[in-house]
Structures are given as structure tokens and as C-alpha cells.
């Protein structure tokens, strides 16, 4: 139908202005979805491959643990594998950031920041559960205590998170996931090489270095995360100006 005729047909169906609309909508206490429902809905939007890959890594760990036992090399392998878990989570967050989800938020009930927090929270919790499970499985079977083992496993993971967040803050293209993949491979291979090269890296001698690295990387990761959140708030502001 021609544009002019469409416009005229639209005008044909114009109704008188409703008199009680504002008062009705102001008083109308319509039910809203609870926070739990929102989290449940977001859980469904996280790609299946994230869960499958995480589960696969966990099963492989259990398999190795059962058949090969625990040794220093096993800790080395595990600490090199863990950055890939963070890569899976980062790729999911990248998807939200690079595909301009913030532009849709103006017509949505929840803003982009809320969705980001919920998703990052879900993925972070899943990673934490994964990490704690591995820790509890390994803790009695090595000479390292719970915290030392946690430190050895999480430091490369944190390094990967930190560099990936820098990438996410500096770049905004669809290639971010691939760059994060390269970063993860780099962190993982470096971890293997360094731990092979320095035989006594898991001994008391390097204890202070591990603690310092962990604290510094944790602080730097939080700083990058704050930067990412601020960046999203800027997007929100920019989007509001274009409405």
C-alpha cells in the first residue's frame, strides 16, 4: 500500500484522546517478574556451549584424577587449563558488549548494566563452583594446603581475566573473542613453560611471589571491571541522547 494511503488509513482509525489513561496507569499496580525469575531467564540465554565446555573440563579433571593421581605436573596442567574456563565466560560477556545490546535497553524492562551483572554473576558463580570442586578434590591428595593450591590454580586464571578485560575495554569489535582466545593460549602456554622452567616454583621460596601476584592481579582485574561498567554507563547515556 502506498505510503500516503497508509498514513491516511491510520488517521481514519484515530480515536478521541482517552480521558482516564494517566490516572489508570499511575494507579495500576501490574505484577512484575521477580529478581529470581529474571536470573532464571538470563540463565536460559547463556549459550549451551558455555555449560557443555565447563562440564567437559570438569569431567576430564575427574577422569585424570581417577586414573593418573595427583602430582605437581597435574597442578601445573590444571592451572594452565583454568584460564580456558575464564575464556568461556569472557566470550559470553563479549557477546553482550560487542553486539550492541545496550542500544536495545531503552525499550526493555531491565537495562544493559543489570543484564550484564546478572550474566557475569551467573558465570562467576559457575566458575567459582568449578574451582572449589577441583580444590576440594585435590586438597587431600597433594602436599599443598587448600589456600596454596587455590593460589596456584587461580593466579593464571586471574592473569587471563585481567588481560581479557583490558582487551574488552580497549576494543569493541567482533574479533574481541578471538583476541581473548589468543590471550588465554598465551597465558596457558606461559604457565606451562614457566612452571617447567622453574622447578621449585611451587615451593616455599616463591610463596611471597604467588601471594603478591594474586593480590595485584585481583586488584587490577577489579579496576578493569569497574572501567568496563563505567564504559557501559557511557553507552547508556549516549543511547539516551539519540532517543
Amino acid at each position, binding site marked *: 500500500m502506498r505510503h500516503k*494511503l497508509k498514513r491516511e488509513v491510520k*488517521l*481514519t482509525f484515530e480515536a478521541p484522546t*482517552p480521558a482516564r489513561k494517566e490516572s489508570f496507569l499511575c494507579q*495500576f499496580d*501490574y505484577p512484575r517478574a521477580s529478581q529470581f525469575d529474571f536470573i532464571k531467564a538470563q540463565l536460559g540465554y547463556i549459550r549451551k556451549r558455555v555449560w557443555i565446555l565447563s562440564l567437559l573440563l570438569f569431567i576430564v579433571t575427574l577422569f585424570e584424577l581417577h586414573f593418573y593421581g595427583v602430582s605437581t605436573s597435574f597442578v601445573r596442567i590444571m592451572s594452565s587449563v583454568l584460564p580456558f574456563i575464564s575464556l568461556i565466560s569472557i566470550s559470553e560477556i563479549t557477546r553482550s558488549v560487542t553486539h550492541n545490546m545496550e542500544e536495545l535497553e531503552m525499550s526493555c524492562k531491565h537495562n544493559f548494566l543489570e543484564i550484564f551483572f546478572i550474566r557475569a554473576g551467573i558465570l562467576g558463580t559457575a566458575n567459582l563452583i568449578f574451582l572449589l570442586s577441583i580444590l576440594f578434590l585435590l586438597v587431600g591428595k597433594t602436599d599443598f594446603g587448600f589456600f596454596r593450591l587455590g593460589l596456584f590454580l587461580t593466579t593464571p586464571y586471574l592473569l587471563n581475566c585481567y588481560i581479557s578485560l583490558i582487551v574488552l575495554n580497549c576494543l569493541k569489535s567482533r574479533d574481541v573473542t578471538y583476541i581473548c582466545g589468543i590471550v588465554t593460549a598465551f597465558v596457558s602456554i606461559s604457565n606451562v613453560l614457566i612452571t617447567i622452567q622453574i622447578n621449585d616454583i611451587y615451593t616455599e621460596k616463591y610463596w611471597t611471589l604467588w601471594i603478591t601476584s594474586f593480590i595485584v592481579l585481583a586488584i587490577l582485574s577489579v579496576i578493569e571491571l569497574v572501567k568496563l561498567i563505567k564504559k557501559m554507563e557511557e553507552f547508556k547515556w549516549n543511547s539516551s541522547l539519540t532517543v
Partner: protein
Amino acid sequence: MSVSLQDQYDKIYRYCYFKVNNKEIAEDLTQETFLKYFSQTSYINRGKPLAYLYTIAKNLCVDYYRNNNKEKKLDTEILVNDTISKVETNLTVRQAVSTLPKDLQELLLLRYANELKVNEIASIMGISRFSVSRKLNKAYGELKTILKEEDFS
């Protein structure tokens, strides 16, 4: 209050007004539609299909006529008297639209005034998408024939 709810209020009100041709009753029915819509919690969390909202409005309009105007046939024709001040072109189109069968008028309202998608209209009217497209083309053809002297090309 979300923007979409405000927007949907206007659209449902327009639809009810088209059905009952009375401002007060149309607004009552619109508000009742929303109250009914949100009273059924099973649909709320994932967002109810838009068709459901229109189905409630449609049923309420039918109920209204059953209860209050049994002798009167559901009149869905467009009134032209209250729009006398409108420009001449629009008056011509109004008259042309009012000569169309009521189901075609309803289709035009849903498609062009309320800007619904073809599949949404198909759900509301309980017909296939193909049928909606065919009827829309038919309505367009009839309008074009009636308005052949006007400049709408």
C-alpha cells in the same frame, strides 16, 4: 510505568473504540482488558503474546454487546460525523474505509493504525498468515478502486 504499556493502552483503546464507537465504554473496556490480562500470572514472567491482549479486548467488546445491546448488531463501521473538521482527503479515505466489510476494516486498523505484524494479526483473528495477506491486498484493491480519482499513487 513502561513505555510499551502506555503505547499498548492507546492501541487497545483504539481497537475498543473501533468496536464500540463510544469513548467512555471504549476506555472502560480497555482498562478491564488490562486488569484481566495481568490477573493471570502464568503469562507475566515471559511476556504474554500480544494476541492474548487483543483476544481479551475483542471478547469484552462482544460481551458488552451481548449484555447491553442484544438487539443491536455489532457495529464496527467508522463514524464520520465526529470528524467533520478533518481535512477533506482524510474524510474521503474515511468514507472509503467505511464502505469496506467490517473484517477488512479491522484488518486495516490492526495492520496500519496499531502497526501489528501479519503473524500477530493472524493469531488475533484466528486465520492464517496467508489469509491475512490476501485480505489486506483485497482491502487495498478495494480502496484503490474507490479512491481512483484521488492522488494516492
